[in-house]
């Protein structure tokens, strides 16, 4: 498959359960290694770097299932997001940026992360990702299992993050929402890209309408 992302864009990758979306993000982040091909960031090969070096280069993933640290406080989770050295130096600034985006997290700063609601945990996972100072933020199904109201809030925040200059790679099963807010999109089926195009343009595509939107 071939996929490219320009700086400042929101790109979404949609596809059914098992299509390979998570695997794609893990391959970019270095958690699984591609058997062939290359992952490049501004011309530099990422696919041979250890995972922490990839994060240091600003390629940050918010994993499916959030993967927060349940027995640490909200604040400690966020501080751990600032593990790369350059992110560590900006920790106070990044923290106030996250408090700003998610006021609820500030209220819950001293609470154990495992006691948060699903929506709050997702916000924490995104906040933790921002603490790593991403240039590319990859979100894996941020809407999974959340109430529609919360989903709306999360998507709004993602747009705000993008407006602040962070490039977004969004992986979703919620085709309508994600393509609707994306500059471009890719459709993944059985590990291959079957369609690519502008977000709204894909929404109008007949295959997508019948296969994913049921219209």
């Amino acid at each position, binding site marked *: 498959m071939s996929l490219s992302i320009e700086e400042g864009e929101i790109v979404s990758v949609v596809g059914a359960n098992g299509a390979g979306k998570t695997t794609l993000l893990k391959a970019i982040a270095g*958690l699984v290694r591609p058997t062939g091909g290359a992952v490049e960031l501004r011309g530099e090969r990422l696919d041979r770097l250890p995972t922490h070096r990839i994060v240091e280069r600003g390629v940050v993933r918010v*994993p499916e299932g959030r993967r927060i*640290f349940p027995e640490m406080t909200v604040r400690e989770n966020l501080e751990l997001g600032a593990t790369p050295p350059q992110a560590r130096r900006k920790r106070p600034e990044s923290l106030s940026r996250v408090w700003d985006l998610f006021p609820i997290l500030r209220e819950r700063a001293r609470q154990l992360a495992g006691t948060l609601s699903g929506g709050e945990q997702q916000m924490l996972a995104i906040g933790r990702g921002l603490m790593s100072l991403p240039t590319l933020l990859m979100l894996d199904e941020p809407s999974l299992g959340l109430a529609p109201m919360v989903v709306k809030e999360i998507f709004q925040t993602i747009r705000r993050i993008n407006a602040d200059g962070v490039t977004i790679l969004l992986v979703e099963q919620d085709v309508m929402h994600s393509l609707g807010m994306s500059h471009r999109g890719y459709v993944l089926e059985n590990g291959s890209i079957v369609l690519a195009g502008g977000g709204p343009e894909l929404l109008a595509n007949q295959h997508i309408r019948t296969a994913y939107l049921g219209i």
Partner: protein
Amino acid sequence: MLILQALLSGLLNGGIYSLVAVGLTLIFGVMRIINFAHGSLMMLGMYVSYWLFVLWGVDPYLALIASGSVLFAVGVLIEAVLVSPVLEAPEHDQLLLTLGISLVIENLALFLWKADPRTVTVPYLAVAPMVGGIMISSPRVIAFVVSLALTAVLYVFLKRTDLGKAIRAVSQDREGALTVGINMRRIYALAFGIGCACVGVAGGLVVPFYAVDPYVGGVFVITAFVVVVLGGMGNFGGALLAALIVGLAESVAAVFIPAAMKQVVMYTIFVVVLLFRPQGLFGARRA
């Protein structure tokens, strides 16, 4: 009086168990690997202290720094060269590896230092004051105090420092830790090194009152395994409490039944607890 004496020595033993078990539980919590070489590493720590004393007359408590550092280095080396390649391997492969390491260390010790038990006599520790009819063995008290103090220092390190939090993050969610850019290899080496340093210091602490031989580690480590499981695998605070409980139970039982049976008591508690609380007394809450 007998009971009081037993309670005291049980508590003191419990302190040592805690330091041995905390190292084991840290390694398990972070790396999900059971280090069967823990006992032979303790034995190495004991020999470091023994030889420093015999060859250069180094005070055993000064030698703790050496046992701790040597074992830290040995731990980091073992992790980098032997353990890290099997971290993704099936459990029985890991088990064979750590058992193998243990056999190699034991036989090396047997070859170099023979099987004779060796003891260290420290003049200023020989006096055992009696308080209200109870004999207080000073090296055991020192071992207890130092063990608990080190366990506390380690606890604060894990709870409060950035590096300690990174170690706990790995034990709470490995993928989460990769996600935030934690350097896994560094954390694994560090956790393994710290775990080995703990048991090395524990070894150094028992040298003034316990004879060293190449198989001595087994005595302490079997107990430490029981403690780790009772405390909840990977649970730091659980290991500390379970160590004190096991120490007490073992020595109080020894008042009523022949000394040779005391292991039976320990395993009975172990089996009963696991029947009713398989996650250990305090649950497998991770660090």
